[in-house]
């Protein structure tokens, strides 16, 4: 199928999300869509999928103009979408999910399980994507869930597949598997729109890449000819330094020690399984791993958000186990939480208030528990300048800042107070390239100032760029740490559960 978008424009109150975008996807082409968060990728795809209506412009399929008023129309026209957050019912089986909306029924209007299973098996075989039709989706690993989502689109005879950030939840090996499937569709004459903010992936899989910036298509380039530097510059609009500049670490004494840490779920499952680790002053210890392998409970246990099921957490010589969250923060632990809107900020509070969220009753900002607003404001004005937070004013609610600037507010808050250890979870998630660059530099600067940094990230590139030592978390257990450099492929294998020696050896051979 050949898809053309001509002059597609979509305005929201106050912003032009898509500004006269032209895009052509040829039959059998894998077309990459690259852009930062908020560049308009999602809006454009939602228009294509019938979730939004464009204010101006045309959508043409094989030369014919089409109008989609809901996803049903788009599906009928042969467009399939694999959402970043899967559109799967977790408690349903694979077959029920794939065939929802077009279920086979028997004479008694019963859901015909046997016919459904046959249908799914036939599909799986046709596309070389094996699945168990009777498995319940929530029991499947994320990679398989994605496969179900793809099969669901294919079962509706999709000739153009939109993949929205498909690799975000996959191990590198699973991503390779996905890329192989994509090449399979391509060979069958189907088209793919591949959305990602990772430059490398676009160069691996796309034929052509269109870059969006602030709602405009700023260029379409041949993937083979594209230089990463050039793409990054197109995406951000100015030259970007992709390599983090840093000197070798000079670690000294241990500052954060975790011994035999366990976190248990209500059903007794070990979310964190006897983890030992030590972070020294002046080093960055990174923990890689596919999300959901216990990194979140590990971070939350160390920072006092979750009760500790067993083991100890020491800050220097001081035992933090069982201390309140406030005591832990005040004793010198900085925390950049992975979900800034949930744990990091109060969206409706001003930037100034968010900057003292964990210090509001500190002597500097409160006298006898009454807040000193002048101090809060002058503090905010200074910090906003020091940390380059782009905000209209310090009274602006945090929720109206961009993701990158929200993250800078948190970074500023944690970095501006005296800390000995920094626990940074996914510190650059959903943040624009410019801010990523900034946050990375700040992390390294903090390290050089003698802070111990524990970095948890599911972005392998970030881990490799920053880590002095690296460990992998898999099913609640910690593998490593190993001194860097460690080959990316070896980390990928460990993230998939391959034992460390085997992962390292497999590469040497």
């Amino acid at each position, binding site marked *: 199928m050949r898809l053309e978008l001509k002059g597609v424009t979509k305005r929201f109150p106050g912003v032009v999300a898509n500004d006269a975008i032209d895009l052509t996807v040829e039959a059998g082409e894998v077309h990459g869509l690259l852009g930062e968060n908020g560049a308009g990728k999602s809006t454009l795809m939602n228009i294509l999928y019938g*979730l939004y209506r464009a204010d101006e412009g045309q959508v043409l399929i094989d030369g014919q103009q089409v109008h989609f008023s*809901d996803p049903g129309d788009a599906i009928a026209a042969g467009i399939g979408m694999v959402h970043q957050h899967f*559109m799967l019912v*977790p408690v349903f089986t694979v077959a029920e999910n794939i065939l929802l*909306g077009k279920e086979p029924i028997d004479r008694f209007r019963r859901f015909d399980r046997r016919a459904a299973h046959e249908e799914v098996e036939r599909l799986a075989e046709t596309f070389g994507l094996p699945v168990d039709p009777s498995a319940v989706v929530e029991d499947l690993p994320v990679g398989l869930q994605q496969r179900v989502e793809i099969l669901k689109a294919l079962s509706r005879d999709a000739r153009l597949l939109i993949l929205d950030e498909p690799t975000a939840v996959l191990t590198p090996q699973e991503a390779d598997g996905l890329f192989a499937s994509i090449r399979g569709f391509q060979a069958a004459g189907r088209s793919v729109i591949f959305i990602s903010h990772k430059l490398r992936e676009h160069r691996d899989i796309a034929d052509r890449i269109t870059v969006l910036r602030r709602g405009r298509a700023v260029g379409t380039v041949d993937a083979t000819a594209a230089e990463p530097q050039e793409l990054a510059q197109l995406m951000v609009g100015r030259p970007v330094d992709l390599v983090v500049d840093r000197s070798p670490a000079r670690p000294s004494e241990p500052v954060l020690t975790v011994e035999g840490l366990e976190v248990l*779920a209500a059903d007794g499952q070990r979310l964190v399984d006897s983890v030992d680790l030590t972070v020294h002053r002046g080093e960055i210890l990174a923990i890689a791993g596919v999300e959901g392998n216990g990194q979140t409970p590990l971070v939350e246990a160390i920072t006092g958000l979750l009760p500790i099921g067993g083991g100890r957490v020491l800050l220097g010589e001081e035992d933090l186990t069982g201390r309140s969250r406030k005591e832990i923060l005040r004793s010198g632990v900085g925390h950049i939480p992975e979900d800034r809107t949930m744990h990091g900020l109060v969206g409706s509070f001003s930037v100034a208030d968010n900057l003292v969220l964990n210090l509001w009753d500190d002597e500097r900002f409160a006298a006898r528990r009454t807040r000193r607003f002048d101090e809060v404001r002058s503090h905010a004005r200074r910090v906003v300048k020091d940390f380059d937070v782009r905000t209209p004013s310090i009274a602006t609610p945090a929720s109206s800042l961009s993701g990158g600037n929200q993250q800078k507010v948190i970074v500023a808050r944690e970095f501006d107070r005296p800390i000995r250890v920094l626990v940074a979870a996914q510190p650059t998630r959903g943040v624009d390239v410019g801010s990523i660059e900034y946050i990375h530099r700040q992390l390294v600067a903090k390290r050089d100032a003698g802070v111990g940094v524990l970095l948890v990230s599911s972005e392998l590139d970030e881990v490799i760029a920053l880590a002095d030592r690296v460990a992998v978390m898999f099913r609640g257990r910690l593998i490593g740490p190993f001194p860097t450099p460690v080959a990316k492929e070896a980390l990928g294998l460990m993230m998939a559960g391959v034992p460390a020696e085997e992962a390292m050896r497999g590469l040497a051979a």
Partner: protein
Amino acid sequence: MSTQVVSAGAARRRERRFALFTLLLGAAVPLLFLRGATGGIATFVLNDARGERFLLPDLVIPVDLTLVLLSAAIVAVGVLQLVRPVGRRAPLAVGAAGGLFVVAVLVWATTGASVSLVALLRGALFASVPIAFGAMAGVLSERAGVINIAIEGQFLAGAFTAAVVASVLGSAWFGLLGGIAAGALIGVMLAGLTIRFQADQIVSGVVLIVLATGVTSFLTSQLLASNTAWNSPVRFIAAPLPLLSDLPLIGSIVFRQTFLVYLMIVMVIVLQFALFRTRWGLRLRSVGEHPAAADTVGIDVLRTRYRAVVLGGMLAGIGGSWFTLEAASQFSKEMTGGRGFIALAAMLVGRYSPVGAMSAALLFGFADSLATTLQRLPVPLPSTLLRATPYVITLLVVAGLVGRLRVPAADGKPYVKQ
């Protein structure tokens, strides 16, 4: 996604507490109930005095010996819990112990008297009717993603309308239709508020309960008080089923009932099948679990929810009709006495399945029936306390059993298209 996290010993400590409670129950039996006067007997009648084909002899048991045995059994359950923890099934063990304790109460209360076991159990089944219908209404609505706490209001509206229609038209059948229509009307209002206007679902439910209470009370004092002809409904009478009603024990308990009891049993089976085996049910549940997923494959989320809520309202309307077409001879203010909330508890305890909900409804019905039975016996307990039994049991069961409930993922969340 939120993962419930507990500290290591919490589960074990919880189980130890359960075991301790069980042991206390076991100890309470001889302490409270053994009267020392040996030789007391209790008589349990296993026949209905309505001409069954097969007659069973009365069950005559020595009170003291039975109490000792029951006490020993309860203690054994407690000891077993201490010695060999059963983990997730711990609440079941406590439930079993509680059941034995209830039997002990019954035996003790029957000392020197006679209780008809048939009447007790038949009463339990009968009393479970509104709770089961109300719970099914909740299951249907919440499986589709709309919280329905207005069941109490639907009961009142159904009971009132059924009474008036059955009085004026002189037919219980028309009364039932009226009750269904009234329940459906509240359902339409709930759907309108929560789906169309996306109002808070809990607040909407409360508002509708207040509305139904106010309107029915007002109309009762203004209209029915001076017009008794409008409040003397023709009621459903007991309709023994041929052949089946001749079965010993079961026949007397289950098959010599009224129409709504049979309808309840049929509806539970139909709904269980429809929700979990048919295409209709699959789609309805998908809307309650992940509406965006349902929407993208062309299922009309709002319409599905609307229908589920209104259909639920009709079921609750049937439950409401029971009050005036079967249980009492006329409508009186606030006669539903909070059973709509007990129905909600039954839905939770039954884990959002019709069969589970009816099982829980039977438990509450039993508590109701037991309270009635005990009131007739020479028991040194105030009758107000006995009447509180169903509510106390509700509290205990909900606190103890609900535990880790799997709620439909989108329950209570309005669906907003982006």
